[in-house]
């Protein structure tokens, strides 16, 4: 009964939206908006097959590599900066400047510097995704509890052991909030990086369809993007629930008091 209810919550609104869309498009056909049935057949024809391998998977690979690299770099740099007061003071204004730059404007620059290849697209993704992770890591490390610090010190937990056993776990809730932002930025940049000077990938294909007035195909590409976004969000939630089980439990207890 309980699972039935949660499935209902999960699928209820999508079904209503689909019905609405079906009703709205079934009467008078509109060239720019396909019917659900048309979109479904186009989706299968367009994406299940060769394109999955030539366009979708490479895009997803670049996205995964870019986001993971941004997370690792962001955490490592964030630890280095967050643990050092002087470093924080020196770097923070610079970080704010770079963070304020919209990553799409970096695409032409990176095209010149890195060249037109996978490396450029991954660099674009990293350049946008690193900021929320980096800044959140700095914040998480900075706001560490002084009593926890004294505990570590009095038990001789220092250096790398302290980072591993105290600082990283304690900063994880803040870092995860940054990772969540990085994921959605990553998806956007994956598409944008493929819209310029590219010959494959989801972003490239969608633009191609649009320019050749392959309207249902274009829509189906957007659906693919949506599905990737949903999948990312589910994966993130599963990881977060596991990594931050202690944190959610702690918050629940604190809120109950």
């Amino acid at each position: 009964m309980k699972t039935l209810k949660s499935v209902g919550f999960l699928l209820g609104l999508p079904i209503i939206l689909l019905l609405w869309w079906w009703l709205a498009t079934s009467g008078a056909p509109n060239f720019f908006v396909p019917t659900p049935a048309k979109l479904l057949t186009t989706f299968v024809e367009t994406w299940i097959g060769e394109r999955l391998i030539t366009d979708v998977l490479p895009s997803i690979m670049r996205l995964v590599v870019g986001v993971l690299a941004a997370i690792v770099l962001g955490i490592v740099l964030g630890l280095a900066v967050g643990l050092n007061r002087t470093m924080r003071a020196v770097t923070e204004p610079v970080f704010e400047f770079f963070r304020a730059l919209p990553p799409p404007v970096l695409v032409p620059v990176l095209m010149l510097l890195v060249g037109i290849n996978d490396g450029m697209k991954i660099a674009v993704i990293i350049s946008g995704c690193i900021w929320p992770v980096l800044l959140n890591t700095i914040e998480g490390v900075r706001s560490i509890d002084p009593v926890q610090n004294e505990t570590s010190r009095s038990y001789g937990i220092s250096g790398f052991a302290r980072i591993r056993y105290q600082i990283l776990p304690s900063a994880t809730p803040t870092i995860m909030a940054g990772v969540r932002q990085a994921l959605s930025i990553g998806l956007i940049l994956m598409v944008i990086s493929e819209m310029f000077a590219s010959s494959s990938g989801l972003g490239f294909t969608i633009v191609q369809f649009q320019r050749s007035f392959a309207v249902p195909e274009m829509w189906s590409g957007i659906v693919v993007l949506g599905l990737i976004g949903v999948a990312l969000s589910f994966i993130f939630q599963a990881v977060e629930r596991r990594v931050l089980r202690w944190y959610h439990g702690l918050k629940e207890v604190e809120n109950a008091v």
Partner: protein
Amino acid sequence: MLSNNPTSHAGGRTLPEGEALLSVRNLKKVYHTDAGDIEAVRNLTFDLGRGELVCLVGPSGSGKTTLLKCIAGLLNSTSGEVRLDGQVITGPPKKMAVVFQEYGRSLFPWLRVAENVELPLKNAGVPKEERKRLVQEALEAVGLAHVPKSYPWQLSGGMQQRVAIARAVAYQPEVLLMDEPFAAVDAQTRADLEDLIRSVWKKLGVTVLFVTHDIDESIYLGERVIILSSSPTIVQEDILIDLPAERDQLETRSLPRFTELRHHVYAEIQKAKQGHRPEEAITMVAK
């Protein structure tokens, strides 16, 4: 004041060279702030012999925590020194464990109970088998062997402080420092924890320095009570607690001797609050 004065000593008791496990000499701590210097601790001298259980009691704001952190190597003193086994303390020593007042913040919420107790041992490179044994023994000693897999925040305040005590005990310190560990737990839990400390102390033969602002607690727990003056702190008096070794919450607390000691310490603390300072103590430690 009393017909039967306790064996008291103005200023802190010191032991002959080489006999003290922990010795505090002319310890002074001045905090430098933007608003000017604050002298928290003026001049403290006392010794702890091996296996003693000593309570430090003083009016609130008397620099008890400052003193404890200097002893623990968490704060640098302005002048004077603390020695553990003859070695001057410059940072947190290996043979010392601290139990903090804020148990909720001192335990790591991302680690389970047994993992919290195990962490300092793991960090010190104790082999796995021995770690397991030490953790198990420590949890049994504090009566928490049944919840090793719980998270600290799933337990009551008193149980959390037991975990912190288990962590300290498992670390096998020579000196156990406790900074008002029971100030944040309710009265009944507090009584249980006091008895726990006495039993752990007896069983393990560890040297305990217990800081509290609670006069009754200091007398009930201690074999010796050091009374601190108000800030800037010096030792007001150092008295031996000549109560029977077997302490019992009801029996001991209703002994006439307990009441006498309580009166005495209370009066000293009142004097301290009014700014009375034993000149003798100052000259003695200054020599």
